[in-house]
């Protein structure tokens, strides 16, 4: 144990007027961690997907809703056409993305992004309706650079991936995933207001965030 650590702990306990907590108190705190309190969730009545789209659009994200995975390539094509971007994509290797028949003539690479990449396409772990937020987890199939380096980030989400509140995301993670190196909660494209408090998109991260929302998982 470092001297600094010992000293800081001693100071804290002196300030709190006690020694290290007794085992019983520690157990109580341990269970406060293992059974987390639920907090106060902002109430809303909207359908989850509706709310998600409304909130994301409110922060300059764009959304295309498609009935099934089959329509995803066309939706992506439309987006690329709109900004006259070549179909040269860096992509995460999510299982959902792998199910899609991407056009043969698109140049698709599954790798971390580099500075020169223009567009990334990624899956997501979940969406949060409360705030229109995407949750992306780092992992072997999903390098985090995909979320930040390209100018355009296209994220694919299925309607059944949208949860109500932030706490529901954590509930899912505790059940199905362990904490990866990086969890990115992304709510709109990169922005800054550092020049005269004027909001400008595309500070360091993506200039645009586009979501393709797939209504059915079939």
């Amino acid at each position, binding site marked *: 144990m470092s001297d*600094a650590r010992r000293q800081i702990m001693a100071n804290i306990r002196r300030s*709190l007027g006690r020694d290290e907590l007794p085992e019983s108190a520690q157990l109580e705190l341990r269970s406060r961690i293992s059974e987390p309190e639920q907090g106060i969730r902002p109430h809303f009545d909207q359908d989850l997907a509706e709310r998600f789209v409304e909130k994301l659009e409110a922060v300059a994200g764009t959304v295309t809703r498609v009935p099934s995975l089959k329509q995803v390539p066309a939706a992506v094509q439309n987006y690329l056409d709109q900004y006259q971007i070549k179909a040269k994509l860096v992509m995460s290797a999510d299982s959902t993305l792998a199910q899609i028949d991407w056009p043969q003539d698109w140049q698709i690479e599954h790798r971390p992004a580099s500075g020169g990449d223009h567009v990334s396409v990624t899956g997501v772990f979940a969406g949060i309706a409360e705030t229109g937020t995407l949750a992306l987890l780092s992992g072997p199939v999903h390098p985090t650079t995909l979320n930040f380096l390209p100018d355009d980030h296209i994220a694919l989400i299925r309607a059944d991936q949208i949860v109500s509140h932030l706490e529901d995301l954590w509930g899912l993670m505790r059940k199905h995933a362990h904490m990866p190196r990086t969890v990115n909660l992304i709510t709109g494209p990169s922005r800054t207001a550092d020049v005269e408090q004027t909001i400008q998109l595309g500070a360091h991260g993506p200039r645009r965030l586009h979501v393709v929302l797939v209504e059915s998982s079939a």
Partner: protein
Amino acid sequence: MNLEHRSAARFKPQAAEALQDDNLKRALAKAKDGFVLKRLQAVSNLNEFESIRTEARRIKDHVLKHLDYYLEEFERKVIATGGHVHWAETAEQACNVVQDIIGGEGKQVLKGKSMVSEEMGLNAALEQRGHTVVETDLGEYIIQLAHEPPSHIIAPAVHKTRDQISDLFHQEHPKYGLHKRLTEVPDLVSEARQVLRDKFINSDVGITGANFLIAETGSTVIVTNEGNGDLSQILPNVHIVTASIEKVVPTLNDASTLLRLLARSATGQEMSSYTTFSTGAKRTDDQDGPEEFHVILLDNGRSKVLGSDFQDILRCIKCGACLNHCPVYGAIGGHAYGWVYPGPMGSVLTPLIIGLENALDLPQACSLNGRCGQVCPMSIPLPDLLRRHRFKAFQQGLIDSRTKYGLTAWALMVKRPRLYHALTSVLTRVLALMGKSKGSLRAVPFASGWTSARDLPVPQGQTFQQLWAKRK
């Protein structure tokens, strides 16, 4: 203002200088309305704001009461996920830890915005070892070019006008082959993006701050809008987090409660663009991310604030709402305060860290209008804490003799109603005679503090008590 030699002890001359700065006045006027209106709108749109505020306070108070436990638990989880935790009692210790981690000389170090690193004086320490420090938050980048410290805890370059930023870029960017003078916001942002992009990709170490530390998972959390904090930590091989010890919260759910208040109070957003949870080093099968993950836990006096009359300030989540709503901050900006944290939260915290005797003006230079306490999402009673500093200053004999003698004379009078009424009858008469037929006075002996800025309205002539006695 000579920013190199600014200090909290020189508040008065620094404030006087700030008041003369027209660019500062323009920049602050522009910022104020945006922050205030956006916050108000965001808060009004959240029906549960007050109950979440109560909840948030409860969470932080709970943490502070069990701070040792949650810090140890956090440390355990960081280590379990392949990271390292370093403890530092002082700023100097913390800088040394960073130096040891970085090692060698001449490295390029990226920095995401971190007020704790300002507290450490980290940039200067690193530069002394021959490292190059690149501030990556646009506001921090701007002030780094200008060789200035941040003047606001979430908007470090809020004191700069667009013209000043345009000049800075025009002066500093030719070395990257960028010669054109830019004046529009999108162009300025775009050029900074271009310059910094290259640095992101070619740096050895990334240092970020932390908005929260999570005991449940050993995660550090940063909240940004630009994405610079993310690029700073996923591209270099080493990610160092500098955080003060009170940032820990028990669970991801607790962090969620605080997040609902943070962005709304800071910028009026419901969520900032990027909220990032970093847990350990890159996993063996990850394709990107840092090989090393270090968390530095800085105390710098906070463990002694715990359990004191000032403990409430440790609930602060550094949203900046108190600065944005403070009319004194709005008049003089952040640099005049002389140390790292300006505005109301700074005027409470600074004396606790650097010593009240070195920051005597900070708790006094406040009209106690209460707006800061009203908007604080963590219900920190800022005006009460400022007043507590004044109690301490008085008890320790740290107030100026004029105030002391003035108070003694005043107390002598007010405790003797007869004497008081006799004296006020004379005073009101004298002032009325002096201002006879004028209505108000331009100058009054011994009252230059008042008359330097405003006339003194002349009393009606007799005191209420005199007139009331006659009427009866």
